[in-house]
C-alpha cells in the first residue's frame, strides 16, 4: 500500500528507528522540541485538533503510553486506545489485519510490540504515520530523542562530551539506540558494564565504523572524566549465582562515594523507573537530572507527533 502511495508522490512520515535518522534530523527535532516546550508553557495547543491518534500497545508500558497520550492531548488531538490483551490478538488475528483496520480509523498509530520489526512492518501496511514506541529488544526511538535532548538541555550542549553508558548494556534496549545516537555527536564514548554485560563486539564495531568514534570498554565503575553518565539497571536474573549478582550490583550501585571523583558539572541520566542502581542520597545531588529528563518526555513526543503532520 505504502509503495503505491509513494508512486503517486504521497510521502508518509514515520519514526521507526534511530538508524533512519541523521545528525541533521536529530538537530531538527531539537528545534521542534524547543517550540513544543514553549507551547507547553503557554498551555494547551490546537495544532492537531482535527487528528485522532491510536495508541496500540501489545505489551504493557504504562509510562510510555501515558506520555504519548498526554503529548497528543496537549496538541489538541484525540486519542483512542487499543487494548491488545482484550482484543483480537488473543483470537489470533494477524498484525497485518489489525493494522489495516485501525489504519482505516485514525490519522496516526503509536505502536508497542514485543516482536522485533513490528513497527516497520506496520509502517509498510499503514497509509498513515506510524511511531515505534518499542519493538522487543530492537528500537525505541522516541526514548532516544528524549535522552539526546536531555543531554543538550541539561548539560548545555550535545557535542564534544565524554559520555559514559553505565550498567547492563547488553539487555537494555534504550542503551543500544542511545549508543548509536550519542555517537552521532560525540567522539569519546565509554562503556562501563560488569563482565559479560557490555554490548557485543558487533554493536561496538558498527558504531565505531559508522561514526569513527573511540569507544572505551571498562569493567569497573570509573567515571572520573565523564561529562554525561547514563545509568541503566542491572537485573539479578542475568546472573546464575545470586551471591555474584549481589556483589556486582553493589559494585555498580551509584553512590555519593562513586560520585566523589566525578566532575562537578557532570550530569546523571536514567530512563526510569530506577530500583536500587542509584542510591537515594544521589537524588538530591545537583548532578542528578533524571527527573527533569523524564519530564521532557511529553514535549519530545509532542514534537514527534506534530512533525508527522508537518505542524511544527
Amino acid at each position, binding site marked *: 500500500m505504502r509503495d503505491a502511495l509513494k508512486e503517486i508522490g504521497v510521502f508518509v512520515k514515520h519514526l521507526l528507528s534511530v538508524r533512519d535518522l541523521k545528525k541533521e534530523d536529530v538537530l531538527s527535532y531539537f528545534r521542534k522540541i524547543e517550540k513544543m516546550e514553549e507551547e507547553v508553557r503557554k498551555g494547551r495547543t490546537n495544532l492537531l485538533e482535527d487528528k485522532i491518534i491510536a495508541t496500540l500497545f501489545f505489551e504493557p508500558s504504562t509510562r510510555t503510553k501515558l506520555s504519548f497520550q498526554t503529548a497528543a492531548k496537549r496538541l489538541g488531538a484525540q486519542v483512542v486506545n487499543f487494548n491488545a490483551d482484550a482484543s483480537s490478538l488473543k483470537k489470533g488475528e494477524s*498484525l497485518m489485519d489489525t493494522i489495516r483496520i485501525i489504519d482505516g480509523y485514525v490519522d496516526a498509530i503509536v505502536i508497542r510490540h514485543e516482536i522485533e*520489526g513490528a513497527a516497520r*512492518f506496520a509502517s*509498510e501496511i499503514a497509509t498513515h504515520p506510524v511511531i515505534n514506541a518499542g519493538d522487543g529488544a*530492537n528500537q525505541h526511538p522516541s526514548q532516544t530523542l528524549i535522552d539526546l535532548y536531555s543531554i543538550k538541555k541539561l548539560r548545555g550542549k550535545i557535542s564534544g562530551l565524554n559520555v559514559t553508558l553505565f550498567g547492563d548494556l547488553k539487555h537494555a534496549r534504550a542503551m543500544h539506540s542511545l549508543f548509536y545516537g550519542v555517537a552521532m555527536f560525540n567522539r569519546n564514548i565509554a562503556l562501563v558494564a560488569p563482565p559479560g554485560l557490555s554490548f557485543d563486539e*558487533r554493536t561496538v564495531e558498527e558504531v565505531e565504523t559508522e561514526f569513527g568514534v573511540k569507544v572505551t570498554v571498562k569493567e569497573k565503575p570509573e567515571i572520573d572524566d565523564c561529562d554525561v553518565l547514563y545509568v541503566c539497571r542491572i537485573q539479578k536474573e542475568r546472573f546464575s549465582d545470586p551471591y555474584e549478582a549481589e556483589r556486582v550490583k553493589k559494585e555498580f550501585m551509584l553512590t555519593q562515594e562513586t560520585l566523589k571523583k566525578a566532575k562537578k558539572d557532570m550530569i546523571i541520566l536514567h530512563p526510569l523507573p530506577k530500583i536500587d542502581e542509584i542510591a537515594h542520597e544521589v537524588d538530591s545531588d545537583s548532578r542528578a537530572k533524571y527527573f527533569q529528563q523524564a519530564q521532557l518526555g511529553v514535549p519530545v513526543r509532542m514534537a514527534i507527533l506534530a512533525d508527522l503532520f508537518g505542524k511544527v
Partner: protein
Amino acid sequence: MPLKVEKIENGTVIDHISSGEGLRVMKILGIGLGFSARFALIANVKSKKMGKKDILKIEEKYIDEKDFDKIALVAPSASVNIVKGGRVAKKKNVAMPARIDGVLACPNPKCITNFEQVASAFFVEKKTLRCAYCERSFSAGELI
C-alpha cells in the same frame, strides 16, 4: 580418468566458485528438491587461477540477472555464463548487492518476518547483513 560432464547447449554455467561453496550457491538459488531442470555440480575442479574450484551447470534454465548478485554472498569470485546454442551469450562477474530481498530467512526467532506474511530483506553492510526489520546483523555464514 577425468570426470566428464557434458557441455550444455542452453542454460547457465556458474564458474569460478571457490572450492566447497558450490552447495551454498545451489541453496541460495533455490536449487534442491522440487527443482525441475537438469543440473550438475562439479566440485574440486582443477583451476589455474584458483587451485580448485566448483562449477554449477543448469540446463535449459537462465538464471535471472537480479539473482546474479545473490551468488556474490557465498561465492564472491564466481562468474555467471548464460549459454545459448552452445555459445556464451552473456558473461558477468557477480557483485555484492546493497540489499537482498526475499531469499534469506532471518534467524532471530523474535523477528516479525518469522510471524507475519512478509518477505525478508537484508542490507549488505561491510562484513555483515542486517535484517531490515529486526535490525540485527548476521554474518553470511549465519544466514545461508
